[in-house]
């Protein structure tokens, strides 16, 4: 009976999957007269953004980016709630060895450089490849280096959660301001500036900086809660 049910469900699923994929026309250019030319044209002429990928991710598909950031937030908070234990649970072995002096002083020298690289990447998100997600992940690796080198290195969960929620709130507020100004969510309401300059592209730069802060805080909190389950 059960096997029959499984086969039935698989058959129904397979039928609908086949129906869905048979209409796709794989291997043919589907966007020949679609949105591709519109994006490539408007990116430079209206938004004054040098990086087309950034303009699509943040401006044309900005609402999807908000959803992505929310999904990441949900994943991290779910992991934190799974790993949460009470503070006075004692008796666990520490998972970290004491690292040597060379590693300690070396990572102290490298940590600011890594943070600077991450900040550079998300500030220049609309000019060069990269952006909020990439820069945030690089900053998180910098914190990971410090957490592995110094077993007493502590990151305040309060600061992380404040930074993260503040960045998310600013993202949504910018979107709503665009709603008031232009009639659509995340509409650009700042002057566009000159192409290829740091202060160009209107709200895109601000949104990417906020995404960078949010992703960095989330990933750092994730690593921290995996490494130090106790607090």
């Amino acid at each position, binding site marked *: 009976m059960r096997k029959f049910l499984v086969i039935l469900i698989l058959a129904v699923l397979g039928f609908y999957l086949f129906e869905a994929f048979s209409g796709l026309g794989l291997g043919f250019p589907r966007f020949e007269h679609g949105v591709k030319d519109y994006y490539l044209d408007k990116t430079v002429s209206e938004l004054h953004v040098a*990086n087309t*990928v*950034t303009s699509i991710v943040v401006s044309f598909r900005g609402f999807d980016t908000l959803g992505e950031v929310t999904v990441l937030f949900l994943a991290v908070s779910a992991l934190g709630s799974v790993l949460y*234990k009470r503070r006075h*649970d004692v*008796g*666990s*072995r520490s*998972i970290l060895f004491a690292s040597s002096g060379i590693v300690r002083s070396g990572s102290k020298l490298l940590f600011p450089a890594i943070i600077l690289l991450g900040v550079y*990447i998300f500030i220049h998100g609309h000019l060069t*490849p*990269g*952006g909020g*997600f*990439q820069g945030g*992940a*690089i900053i*998180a*690796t910098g914190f*990971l280096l410090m957490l592995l080198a110094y077993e007493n290195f502590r990151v305040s969960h309060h600061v992380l959660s404040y930074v993260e929620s503040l960045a998310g709130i600013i993202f949504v507020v910018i979107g709503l301001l665009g709603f008031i100004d232009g009639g659509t969510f995340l509409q650009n309401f700042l002057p566009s500036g000159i192409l290829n300059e740091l202060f160009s592209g209107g709200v895109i730069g601000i949104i990417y900086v906020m995404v960078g802060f949010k992703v960095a805080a989330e*990933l750092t909190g*994730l*690593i921290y809660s*995996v*490494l130090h*389950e106790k607090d």
Partner: protein
Amino acid sequence: MIYLILIFFLLILMVGAAIYAVVQKDLLYAVIATGVISLVLTVLFYILQAPDVALTEAAIGVALTTIIFLITIRNTLRHEDEYSNKDKFKSPTK
């Protein structure tokens, strides 16, 4: 032509690393193999002119995912066979 050969070589390396990660019973080696997959994928993305995705893959795929898996292995058990024996498996917090 040289790009085609390079891409072909990298793809073979990726498939080999993926098969190794599935077959290998020692989970530490399997995690390192998944890291290798991400590393090769980074190079491939860069060759295919997607530096944005390459940066993401380098930071998240190579560094963060591998480290999180390594910490998990450190907290639980290293070999796949040990999980079948339930009595051996003890929570590290005990």
